[in-house]
């Protein structure tokens, strides 16, 4: 356990802070891209594109700004478990929603 703790500390020190400003500009470009896509494709058919771009942005923030890329497995599991619950809830409600669209 001591070894694991040491490893986690070393890992934390080793990440040397990712290029935060570069990531910020990538986030801005992706935001601008989602606005352009929504304007070009139209509101009705834009969701797959804009929500994919949102997910990429969310991943960049979670991995680099929230440091999940460098975090210990305990913290990573605390971030992933609620996401799994969230996805299960989505799939549980999906059939009802799809049925109501058909109607």
């Amino acid at each position, binding site marked *: *356990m*001591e070894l*694991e*703790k040491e490893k*986690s500390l070393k890992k934390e020190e080793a990440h040397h*802070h990712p290029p*935060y*400003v570069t990531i*910020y500009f990538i*986030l*801005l470009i992706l*935001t601008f891209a*989602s*606005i352009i896509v*929504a304007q070009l494709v139209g*509101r*009705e058919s*834009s*969701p797959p594109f*804009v*929500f994919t*771009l*949102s997910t990429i*942005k*969310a991943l960049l*923030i*979670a991995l680099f*700004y*929230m440091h999940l890329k460098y975090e*210990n497995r*305990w*913290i990573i599991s*605390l*971030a992933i*478990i*609620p*996401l799994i*619950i*969230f996805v299960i*809830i*989505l799939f549980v*409600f*999906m059939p009802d*929603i*799809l049925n*109501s*669209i058909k109607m």
Partner: protein
Amino acid sequence: MEETKVLDRVEYEEYESIPVSFRKFGFWIFLSGEIVILGGIVASGILFRLSYPEWFANSEHTNFIISSINTLVLLTGSLTAVLAHKYATFHDWNKVQLFLGLTALCGFTFVGIKFIEYSIEIHHGFIPTRNVFWMFYFGITGLHGLHVLAGTLIIIGVMIYLRKKKVIEAVENAGLYWHFVDIVWLYIFPLFYLT
């Protein structure tokens, strides 16, 4: 005396079983709850969008220019929050205060812009009781706005706390909350303003 010793040992062993600081671990437990609550609310909006054909007709009346500016404000706040944490690890506390101050400024700017946006919409007759879209819109963006305000107050609280004690994790946890609120906005923004 014996009881105290045993208790100390138990606490020590518990700490050793989780190679993460308690402050950070506890804060992530809090964030996990927030992910399920806010995530669930936003997901209900996304699912409802699929089944409500009048969604596009209503979402055309939301102001995507104002909300794009607010997206920029939140992302800038995320950058300044993470830079505050970076300088905290270097023990450059003046810069930490500066970047936390900038993050708080972003928070107040976001809330101020939101108020302007709401007043424009209400002036045009788009109120929560108009239809289900506007109920979702005011409910979700309002709840998110309250979270931004809470994040801003947490950051101000940390700035005051840092004058007494220099704790890196306080800066990190305040930043984590800000980033989480930012991620939620990344889904709210396309839901109401782009789709």
